[in-house]
């Protein structure tokens, strides 16, 4: 019995240590990633504001997010018009009206960088993140901010940086600063897990 229980106890002890330490001590990237990785899947609603220099007003959209670890991310926009973006592995499928586009992430490094940042963060996949970005974490486990700066100049030509803000093990907002000064802010609200 004890052999079977041991990992459980170890995990519980770790969780205890983490939550107690959270109040005071600054959060490390590995701690954040470990806690994010605890959620193999999650559903949330989002609303997004895009500030585009060309446009006088921000463009607002909203919809649902669904993440299934390790590699599937669905973004279903409901307003202003229904469309969906499904990332599965390396394949990105965009659906808009009756049109459907299937693209390979490797062909679109700018898009890939942006989407990978969200997926890898949700998955708590530090390795994947560090392949594309330099990470800087600020705050504690109650309230943290993770800033991603692209390593690849090709990605950097489009994305200046990505700022993620979160509470405990939840990502609450993703703010993308584009190189041309445009930016988008996506706020995420967690829903009950659809299990």
């Amino acid at each position, binding site marked *: 019995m004890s052999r079977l229980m041991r990992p459980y106890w170890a995990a519980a002890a770790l969780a205890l240590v983490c939550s107690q330490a959270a109040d005071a001590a600054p959060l490390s990237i590995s701690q954040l990633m470990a806690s994010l990785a605890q959620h193999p899947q999650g559903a949330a609603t989002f609303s997004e504001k*895009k500030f585009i220099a060309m446009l006088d007003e921000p463009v607002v959209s909203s919809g649902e997010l669904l993440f299934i670890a390790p590699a599937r991310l669905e973004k279903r926009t409901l307003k*202003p*018009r229904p469309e969906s*973006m499904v990332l599965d592995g390396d394949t990105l499928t965009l659906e*808009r009206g009756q049109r459907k586009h299937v693209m390979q992430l490797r*062909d679109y490094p700018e898009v890939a960088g942006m989407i990978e940042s969200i997926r890898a963060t949700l998955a708590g996949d530090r390795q994947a993140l560090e392949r594309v970005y330099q990470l800087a974490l600020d705050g504690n486990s109650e309230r943290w901010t993770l800033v991603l700066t692209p390593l690849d100049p090709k990605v950097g030509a489009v994305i200046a940086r990505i700022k993620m803000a979160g509470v405990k093990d939840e990502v609450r907002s993703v703010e993308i600063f584009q190189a041309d000064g445009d930016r988008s802010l996506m706020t995420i609200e967690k829903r009950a897990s659809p299990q």
Partner: protein
Amino acid sequence: MIHPRRRGIAAIVLWLIFLLACAGIISRTHFTTDLSAFLPRAPTPEQQLLMDQLRDGLASRLILVGIEGADAPTRARLSRQIAQRLRADRTFVSVNNGEPVNTERDRIFLFDNRYLLSPAVSPARFSADGLHAALSDSIDLLASPAGLLVKSLLPRDPTGEMVQLLEQLNSGTQPKLVEGAWASRDGTRALMLMQTRAAGSDTDAQQRAMAAIRQAFDQAASATPSARLVMTGPGVFSVTSRDTIKRQVSRLSIISLVLIATLLLLVYRSFSALALGLLPVISGALAGIAAVSLGFGAVHGITLGFGTALIGEAVDYSIYLFVQSEQNRADHQNWIERFWPTIRLGVLTSIAGFASLLLSGFPGLAQLGLYAIAGLIAAAMVTRFVLPSLLPAHFHIHDVSGIGRTLSRAVQRAAALRWPAVIVLLAACAIVVDHRATLWNDTIASLSPVSQADVELDTRLRADLGAPDVRYLVVVSGANQESVLRASERVSTLLQTQVEQGRLAGFESPSRYLPSMATQRARQDSLPPRLLLETRLAQAVQGLPVRAQVFTPFLADTAAARSQPLLQAADLEQTSMAMAVDALLIQQRGQWRALLPLTAPAGVSINADPIRAALSAMPDVLFVDMKAESDRLYSGYLHEAIVLSLGGLVAIIGLLLVVFRSPLRVLRIIAPLAAAVMTVTAGLSVLGQQMIILHLVGLLLVVAVGSNYALFFDRLDPRTPILPRTLASMLFASLTTVAGFGLLAFSKVSILQALGVTVAPGVILALIYAAIFARQSDAESSRA
């Protein structure tokens, strides 16, 4: 004695001259193995199209390549390395493996010409309302995940024409990418799609293309023994068929020659007899090839295969001469007097049978007919006029009278088998009548020398690649490029409604990449002058979160588009669109033609009727189902061949009636042949082999060869028994025929196999039936 000898020498000289002439003709003959043998001599417009497509259409120039084995990264690396090397090779027009090669060039071309190419460009779209609607769509798109991709385009292309064009071009299904290269759905095979510069019917060029692919694979940096290369496509099929036919024909001719020579040696026990006996055969083969070459301009490999088998039949004449005549020169003259009329009649009946094939619209069949006629005449003539003079003074063969006497006794008892034979025959008739619906295979695939495994590989790769199978085509014809493109645009509009109704998944049209001048001009005219557009734009942005000033580049671009020169075919060069236009827009014999291939909705076949009906009002527009068309073509051949064969039978009966002037006697000769044909047909159908056109030729051969036997068994005076020597000669003759044709039954080429399985048993059956139903000589019956 001097006179006939001089005549003999004259015959030999003439024969040698004839052989030289034949050899001369053959040396200049073109041998083919392509589809030409199967294509009609007087095609309908649909058939002409089918032929052109098979010869050098888009589909005919595709080579589908698969890389199997090893692991996925290795396969993808191999795919990229092969592609990189072959893209530099002039043999290929395009090499696709999913890498974005032309993408950048294509994008620039599309973007620079978007106002001439986009079907959305119309006067209404550039009205204030139209602009407003287009702009709000574009702003919505900005908010979407794809917004990042279109943002930079917005100031120059606020109406989203580029997005329109890209969506139109990407409508086809693409294979999935694994490690950056196309892979099959199950991921176990890397895929590539290549288009050759040469036509699919240019088998030599296709072979070179295949060799280039193979070499690129073998010499790739990542080459590993665990990876395998597979290729398929129409060109690949012609190359492998040619190899198969070549290999089979040469192997079969050697084996059958050895077999027949061994058989004859056993009988004759004399090498000189063997050599002399083969002279008529060789003369016949040469005469046959030369005649076909003169008559058709080229000789098909299948005709040569057929010729191989005919060795077994042509050797009969010398067997008759050697075995039937006594052992001295005088008797050869005697043989000519006694037996030649019978053999001559046999040759004539064969000719009557094969002559009907000459009328066939199926060039392959007509070639076989001509070959058989020329070959048999030459072989018989050489046996009659040349061979007796060539025989040495003391020429003799091994005494076969022992075998003859045994046969004689067997034949006397054969009559006892009459009733069993009648029962077998009745059963055969019943089987044939019962299976009459499934007797014939009238799909053209049945003629294909391509193996089932190769066909399956082709189907798999095609499904994985989503390669066009180009089964359904709409064809627009016209006097010039402009009229054809305009008609294509009208057809496209009609087809688009079919797509929207879900009857079609999609279609291609050359007018998509190269719109007609009229359409381009109309689109140009839809763009308002700069000042007017500026005013409309100011109205259009009202209520939208954007200022009109953002679109200053748009004003400049439309102003430029209004006066830009219209697109010509040459402008597409260096883009992947050029390839499409090249394949879909064809100028031939002073006529222009546009092809619009249709794609069926997934898992459903296209219902041709509504599309045909929708298109029927348009002149010079043809809806073609290539598969149905080729099957119809072949079943037309088949039915024609059946009618012609029956005609041949009538001709044979007519000939015999003229010669014998006795219907009963003719019936007696025809009966065993008909019985043999019926029994073979029943046998094939019991064994589950559906008959193709070559089975029919085989049956005709059974009648031709069998008629000799029936004629030998036929005697005016029933009191003269058949000489044992005659019987022995017939046995040897049928054995050589069986040896020649029997080998074909083991061929992997379906058309050769069909001949073999029909003729070999048919000839034996004809001999047996002839013996069983022969009139019993009085002496024999009184003794019995």
